[in-house]
């Protein structure tokens, strides 16, 4: 229900068809971790939630960055708005590399009725690009409802490697 509404709303039909082949691949479950980051068996970033509800640092960081950079158009917690589609669904429906491509280079969907949908290119925006994986894994966790709406509670500490990478990226 949500997916078909999204396709109609955002004209994502094309992207959806391209990525449908990935359906039988597990794009969600964390297979291994490296320096506080989690990946699927195909090396795609993903979230990790421990039994006591503690979430990984990137997912928490993604919550913050999403609500700074994305939510003024896409609504709180990836839920979508009258203006832009629900990214919690996009993060599930879209291939990771397509997701990165759209954020980096932007996309236009012409619908008429003043409803043209334009995603800007964030490729030069360090506040987005340095946290792209953070935002992606947060939205994926929202898409599966592994992380509920609202502010995440317990989180893993920020690893030294993540901290160093962040500083290097922000310059």
């Amino acid at each position, binding site marked *: 229900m949500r997916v078909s509404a999204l396709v109609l709303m955002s004209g994502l039909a094309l992207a959806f068809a391209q990525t449908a082949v990935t359906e039988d691949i597990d794009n969600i479950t964390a297979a291994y971790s490296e320096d506080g980051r989690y990946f699927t068996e195909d090396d795609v970033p993903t979230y990790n939630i421990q039994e006591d509800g503690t979430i990984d640092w990137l997912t928490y960081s993604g919550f913050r960055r999403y609500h700074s950079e994305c939510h003024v158009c896409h*609504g709180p917690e990836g839920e979508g708005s009258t*203006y832009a589609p629900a990214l919690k669904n996009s993060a599930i429906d879209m291939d990771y590399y397509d997701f990165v491509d759209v954020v980096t280079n932007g996309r236009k969907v012409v619908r008429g009725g003043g409803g043209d949908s334009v995603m800007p290119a964030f490729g030069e925006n360090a506040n*987005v690009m340095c946290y792209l994986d953070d935002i992606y894994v947060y939205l994926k966790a929202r898409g599966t409802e592994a992380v509920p709406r609202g502010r995440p509670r317990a989180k893993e500490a920020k690893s030294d490697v993540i901290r160093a990478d962040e500083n290097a990226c922000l310059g």
Partner: protein
Amino acid sequence: MKKLTALTSAVAICAAGMATANDDLQTKMDNPNNWAIQTGDYANTRYSELDQINRDNVGDLQVAWTFSTGVLRGHEGSPLVIGETMYVHTPFPNIVYALDLSNEGKILWKYEPKQDPDVIPVMCCDTVNRGVAYSNGQIYLHQADTTIVALDAKTGAVNWSVKNGDPAIGETNTATVLPVKDKIIVGISGGEFGVRGSVTAYNTADGSQAWRAYSMGPDSDILVDPAATTHLGEPVGENSGTNTWEGDQWKIGGGTTWGWYSYDPDLNLVYYGTGNPSTWNPAQRPGDNRWSMTIMARDADTGMAKWFYQMTPHDEWDYDGINEMILTDQAINGEARKLLTHFDRNGFGYTMDRETGELLVAEKFDPVVNWATHVEMDKSSDQYGRPQVVAQYSTEQNGEDVNSTNICPAALGTKDQQPAAYSPKTELFYVPTNHVCMDYEPFRVSYTAGQPYVGATLAMYPPSDSHGGMGNFIAWDGKKGEIVWSLPEQFSVWSGALATAGDVVFYGTLEGFLKAVDANTGEELYKFKTPSGIIGNVMTYTSGGKQYVGILSGVGGWAGIGLAAGLTNPNDGLGAVGGYAALSDYTALGGQLTVFKLPD
């Protein structure tokens, strides 16, 4: 009402011999059969002398006719009516229709600009537009991409156009323009993109620039006389637009000017407010950040500032100061005063002397406002005029990367741009309000031209002890600074109000209801559900001698973004999902004008 008439005739005398274009607009505004300016009049009272529709018969109201705008986005502002022609605007792509009211609304002409759609995502919070303006036979459209077009009101032909800003660095427009004499006064949006706000006057004859006043920067940029321009009665001094900033931060300092403008013809002063300083992370911009968050009074001819009042020095909550300034003539303690009343995002209702900039009243217009205890009114205090910030709710004092919780109001303010109305009969202000609180966590961001420059994470939710809704529609006594009555609403009230001589006050709701209430008691007299949520402003006019009431519906804007999925309180604990109503359960997109009348 007598006072208003007296003022008008005084103006006519003053203006005689100046052969100014606003004679035309002033005459048309004085005739209540027209709705000649978005704000109802120069004073922004949104009051109409029409009284065919009144307290006793408004319950019989019915739909007279409707008009689809063909656009889906959020519809703010309202149509204008000049004589028997109605001018209807839309959000991006900013179409203008001229409708013939004497011929069943037939479309006389349509103007649709060509705009680069790249402007769409640079507009924070939807592609709204608050309507066209009229003076001297021209309709002024201020497009999303900051192009201002002067159209021949009769034919829709383009007389001239001029570009006020550059969307590539985040400069956009959502506001209407204010025609004054032979100029139009024009603002700019982009506070979330590090735009340095400014107000510009263009000559209506050819679109050439007359003056520009920035909100911050050197004295020559902000158009002040350091010795004569005052702040709370004291000269602002030299370099007031840079000396409360660190380094060059003022160059991307915000203070944009996307709200409403008013004008006092007697004093020849234009009034408006400036928006938030950039970024939302207060730690990145130490100092008071003047003149963001400021009420400004400027000479209409030269732009020179007469007085400023900074309501929220060093903003820590995104409480833009852009809401309308309502100009009234009322007696305080038996003394006739020229007043300016302003309901700020920060939750305080301010009453000021509009001639001198003296602060008379500053009181909370929602009891839940908690970020400041009060505004210091003791003139001998070094804190005079400053809000007394509560440490617990100070995102500056709590610091970067710390989540400050339960701050009231939320960043969208106790009231946003949705304009209030004032009735000289009741001497009450009718104010659409938000009843929403927030968590606010600031963090460091870097600036890239044309990219969002926000630097804070927000979560919004209704106050814990609220009536369960997210808005109120209140009547306010501006002399005392007191709420007279308050009507709870399920959602924020995001529609501009209209007060009339028929003792009726109208407003719209986000579910899509047009409501009429008794101006004295607030008693609900009529409601009708329009096709989409209302974020437009109610207006009234006559055609063929009969009074009509018009409202644009078409949900969107910040309300459509923030409330579409419903709000949750992150402090309610895990799993407390969907605790509050979702707007998407009540309404869907679609721009339409609905016009009401009494039965024939």
